[in-house]
C-alpha cells in the first residue's frame, strides 16, 4: 500500500530566507500525523507546499502514489484542506458554500445534495442552511469549513490549527470529529502548536524547528527519549507560592516552574526527590496539599527540542547561583 504522503528533500526559499530545509518524512495511510513547531518554524509553509498552494524550491512530494509535480489532479482529488482561517464565502449560505465546493470537486448532483445534508446535520448546521455565513459565529464557520473540506470524501485531510480561538465545546466537537473521520479511514495531517491536542489525537508527530525536522515518532516514544524532563509536582500550604527558591535548592532539582498554585520540580530522579520534598514540608511546618511524580509531557519534549523555555516563571539553579555569587562579591 502506498504511503498517504511521501516527502523527499523538500525545500523552500523566500528570496534568501530558507524557510524549509531539505525535510523528508512519510505519513502512513490511516494515521493521524501531527506536525508541530513554534511560530516561524516552517510548518505552515510545509503544509502549503503539500496542498499545492505553494511551489517548493526543491524536493518531491508524493500523495498516495501520485507525484504532486507531474500528477497534481489525482492527488488534489484525494485531499481536503481546512486552513487556519475559515475561508468560507460569507456572502453565500451554508448550503451555497457546500454546493459550490461539491461542484468544484465534481461531486454528482444527487450525491452532493445527500452528502451536504448529512454533513450539515452532523455539524449541527442544518437549521441554518439557508442563512448567510456572514451571520455565523467563529465556531460555526469552522465547522462549515471542515464540512466543505470533506464533502468529496477525501482520503487525506489537512487541518491547520483547527481549534485555537474556539470555545471549549466547539474545540472538543472538532477533536471528536477528527477521531471519527480517522476511524472511518481518513488520513489526517494536523498542523498545530497545541501540543496537548497533538498528544491526544496523533499516532505520530513530527517536530519542525528552524525549517528542519528535529524529531519524528509516536508521542510516547518521544516522551521516553526525554526522561531527563521528569518532574515532581508539589502544592504546599500556606503560602505555597513563596517556596520556589528553597525547593530549587533541594538536591537533584534542576529547575522549578510555578504551575498555578503548584511548583513543578524537574529532576532526573523523581523517586529520590520525593522524601526530600516531604522533609522540607515537615521542617517548615507546611501541609502537603498534593505531591505527585510526572513523566515528561509532549510539551516538555517539544520545548526541549525547540530550545524554548518551560513554564512562565523559571528558577534555574545556574541563575540562582549567579545571583548568589554576585551577592557574595557585594
Amino acid at each position, binding site marked *: 500500500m502506498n504511503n498517504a504522503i511521501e516527502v523527499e528533500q523538500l525545500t523552500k526559499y523566500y528570496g534568501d530566507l530558507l524557510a524549509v530545509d531539505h525535510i523528508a518524512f512519510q505519513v502512513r495511510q490511516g494515521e493521524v500525523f501531527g506536525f508541530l513547531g513554534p511560530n516561524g518554524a516552517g510548518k505552515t509553509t510545509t503544509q502549503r507546499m503539500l496542498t499545492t498552494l505553494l511551489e517548493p524550491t526543491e524536493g518531491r512530494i508524493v500523495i498516495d502514489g501520485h507525484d504532486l509535480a507531474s500528477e497534481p489532479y489525482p492527488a488534489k482529488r484525494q485531499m481536503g484542506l481546512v486552513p487556519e482561517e475559515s475561508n468560507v*464565502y460569507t456572502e453565500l449560505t451554508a448550503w451555497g458554500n457546500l454546493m459550490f465546493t461539491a*461542484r*468544484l470537486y465534481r461531486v454528482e448532483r444527487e450525491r452532493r445534495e445527500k452528502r451536504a445534508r448529512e454533513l450539515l446535520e452532523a455539524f449541527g448546521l442544518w437549521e441554518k442552511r439557508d442563512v448567510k455565513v456572514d451571520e455565523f459565529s467563529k465556531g460555526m464557520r469552522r465547522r462549515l469549513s471542515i464540512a466543505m473540506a470533506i464533502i468529496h470524501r477525501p482520503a487525506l485531510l489537512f487541518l491547520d490549527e483547527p481549534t485555537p480561538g474556539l470555545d471549549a465545546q466547539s474545540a472538543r466537537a472538532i477533536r471528536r470529529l477528527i477521531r471519527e473521520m480517522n476511524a472511518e479511514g481518513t488520513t489526517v495531517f494536523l498542523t498545530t502548536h497545541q501540543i496537548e491536542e497533538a498528544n491526544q489525537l496523533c499516532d505520530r508527530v513530527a517536530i519542525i524547528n528552524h525549517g528542519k525536522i528535529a524529531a519524528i515518532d509516536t508521542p510516547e516514544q518521544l516522551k521516553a527519549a526525554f526522561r531527563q524532563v521528569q518532574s515532581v509536582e508539589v502544592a504546599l500550604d500556606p503560602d505555597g507560592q513563596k517556596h520556589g527558591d528553597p525547593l530549587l535548592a533541594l538536591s537533584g532539582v534542576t529547575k522549578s516552574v510555578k504551575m498555578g498554585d503548584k511548583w513543578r520540580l524537574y529532576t532526573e530522579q523523581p523517586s529520590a526527590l520525593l522524601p526530600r520534598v516531604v522533609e522540607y514540608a515537615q521542617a517548615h511546618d507546611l501541609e502537603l496539599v498534593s505531591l505527585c511524580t510526572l513523566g515528561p509531557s509532549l510539551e516538555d519534549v517539544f520545548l526541549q527540542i525547540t530550545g524554548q523555555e518551560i513554564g512562565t516563571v523559571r528558577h534555574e539553579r545556574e541563575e540562582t547561583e549567579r545571583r548568589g555569587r554576585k551577592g557574595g562579591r557585594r
Partner: protein
Amino acid sequence: MNEGVMARLRDEVSQAWTVAVKDVRVYYLTPPMIMFGLLLPFFLFFSFSVRREIAMEVGIARLLALTTFFTASSAGPVIIPLERRTGTYDRLLAAPMSLVTLLLGKTLVGAFFATLVSLVPLLVGVLALGATVADAALLIVGVPLASLAFSAFGLVFASIPTRSVGNIMMPSTLVRWPLMFISGIFVPLEEMATWARILAYVSPLTYAQDLMNHAMLGRGYLNPWLDLALLPVLLVVFLIPAARLHHRARVLGY
C-alpha cells in the same frame, strides 16, 4: 480524442463555469466593483464627452468601448486580492483544476459584468433616446468578445502578489489610462496623425472602439473582421502572461 482527456476537459469547463457563477453571486455588489467597474467608465465618458457636439450613436459606441474596457479589466484586480485576503483563493488553488481553468473562470466573470454594464447605455440610448444600431449582430458578438479580452487583460494585473485591491489598481490605472488616451476613443483614428495612429494600434481598446463604431454607426476605420479576429487573439495573448505571472505569484506564496 482520448476519453480521459475529454472527461478532464469537461471537468475543467464545468469548474471554470462554477467559479464564474460563484463570483457573480458573491462579488456583483461589492464596493470596489461598483466603483472601478460601474461608475468609473461613466465618469470618464461624461468627463470627456459632455458639451461636445457628438451624435448619440457616437456617444453610445464610445461608452460601450469604455464600459467593456474598464469594467471587464477591473473584475480580476478587484476579486483576486479580496479572495487572497479572505483565504478563499486558496480554496480555488487547492481544487483539482488547472490554473488556466481558474483564470478562465475569472475571465468569464469580468466578461459577464462588462456585458451586463454595457447593456445599460445601450438600452437607455436605444429605448429612451431613440438611437439606432447599424449592425446588431456585430454588437451581440463584439461586446462579449471585447469583454473577454479585457477581462483577461485585467488578470495580468491581478497576478501582482498582494492582498490589497489598491496595490493592484494603482499600476493598473497607470497602464489603462494611457491606453485609453492613445486608443482613438476620444480622437477618431482617421483624424489622427500617422505616428499617433501607429501608437493607437498598440492599445487593445482601439479595436473594441472601432468595432463599436461599425456596430453603432455602420462605419469604422479598420475592417470589422480584423477587429473581430483580433479580440480573441488578444484574449489568448493576455491569458498566457496572466497564467505565467499567477504561477509566479504562487511561487511567492500568493
